[in-house]
């Protein structure tokens, strides 16, 4: 048994020696760039326009470093404050900016704040007549929808109302603390 192993070993050594004499040993790294897996974070790509990094009760943090307070009307290259109280208060006048723009937007993403809020059906009908598709959802999902519709390159605008109730994760609390530079502080009521 051991002699067999020894024979195998010597055979291997000879083979290896043979290899090394004729070829160079290729290190176990990627042989070419197409083999690598890459990851890009969409929000960090500035060529895609302004995207929403995070939201809170107060407003939104955008990918260009700005913070917008209150409801916003967001476009790929600009962001404006939007004068609207709640989702029910949305009327033709508050949406007038979106349908008078050139080039005409394909989809308007409306973030209604908390999940239960409704937009009046007359407004939905009105925008249908103007040939603008609406995507009405709670603000949490509307932010993400706006982000990846923009990343895809579609003509989309966002009309977002900050939510008052939303889920907070440990990660959110930690990143807020990091931003405020008091990670060591023990907080009974973390403000996100």
């Amino acid at each position, binding site marked *: 048994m051991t002699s067999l192993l020894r024979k195998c070993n010597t055979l291997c050594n000879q083979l290896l020696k043979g290899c090394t004499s004729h070829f160079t040993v290729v290190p176990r790294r990627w042989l070419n760039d197409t083999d690598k897996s890459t990851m890009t974070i969409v929000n960090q790509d500035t060529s895609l326009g302004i995207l929403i990094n995070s939201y809170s009760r107060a407003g939104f943090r955008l990918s260009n470093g700005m913070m917008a307070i209150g409801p916003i009307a967001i476009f790929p290259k600009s962001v404006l404050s939007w004068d609207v109280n709640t989702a029910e208060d949305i009327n033709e006048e508050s949406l007038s900016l979106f349908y008078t723009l050139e080039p005409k937007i394909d989809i308007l993403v409306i973030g209604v704040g908390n999940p239960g809020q409704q937009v009046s059906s007359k407004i939905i009908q009105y925008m249908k007549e103007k040939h603008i*598709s609406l995507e009405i959802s709670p603000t949490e999902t509307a932010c993400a929808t706006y982000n990846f519709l923009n990343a895809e390159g579609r003509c989309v605008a966002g009309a977002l109302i900050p939510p008052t109730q939303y889920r907070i994760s440990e990660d959110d609390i930690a990143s807020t603390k990091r931003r405020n530079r008091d990670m060591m502080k023990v907080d009974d009521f973390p403000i996100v």
Partner: protein
Amino acid sequence: MAASGLHLLVLPGKCCSSFLPSKSPILSSNAILRYNTTESSPTIKKVDAVATSSLMDFGLYVAECMPKYVQKVQIVTGNELEVLVAPDGIVPVLHFLKDHHQCQFASLADIGAMDVPSRENRFEIIYNLLSLRFNSRIRVKSYTDELTPVDSCYEVFKAADWYEREIWDMYGVFFANHPDLRRILTDYGFEGHPFRKDFPLTGYVEVRYDDEVKRVVVEPVELAQEFRKFDLSSPWETFPNLRTLPAGTEEDLKATQTGPAKQ
């Protein structure tokens, strides 16, 4: 056994649960000569009488446990148990089927829906459950119309999340207390509910890339060729051996409340 098995295989739609040899001859005498019915064929579904009768007993048991909500219990295609419930009772019945010790249907396989426009409650919601403990399946069916919301069973089965989103997107059935009911399969600005029977196959809008404005535009659909409906029936009958078969029936357990049915 093989003869009745053949009977079950061929009939379309819902089939009766008669799995015992019937008294009336199914095949004509000519066919018997050609077709040897005593041989078992692997392509013919074999119906286990014992299993089906125990399934029927279980169906009656479920009906007795939940008398307020269960409206009908039936066995279709020989070995599939269906429980028809009122829409108010979907969540209680699913809760019962999941948590009761004799049921333990802990796995939600699928939620589907069916649109029958001629009915008053045009949509039928169909829940398919699987019990790993007892290796059996059950189907819970309920109904609703276009405007009445249905209670979401997300609190019972977490898997119901995306299935209910799909039904909302495709049929327009609203699920109350769903955590996040929004579209899942259709495009973002899409209007309409595609799986409804009154939604045309080609849809209402088409998308194309317009070079002038340099982006994808949405326009009303224009078919270059008119929609052709092919008539696929042939002049020759496809199953000459089975000319004299009777039509299939549903075995209604609540009405009969007796033992194994006979045709």
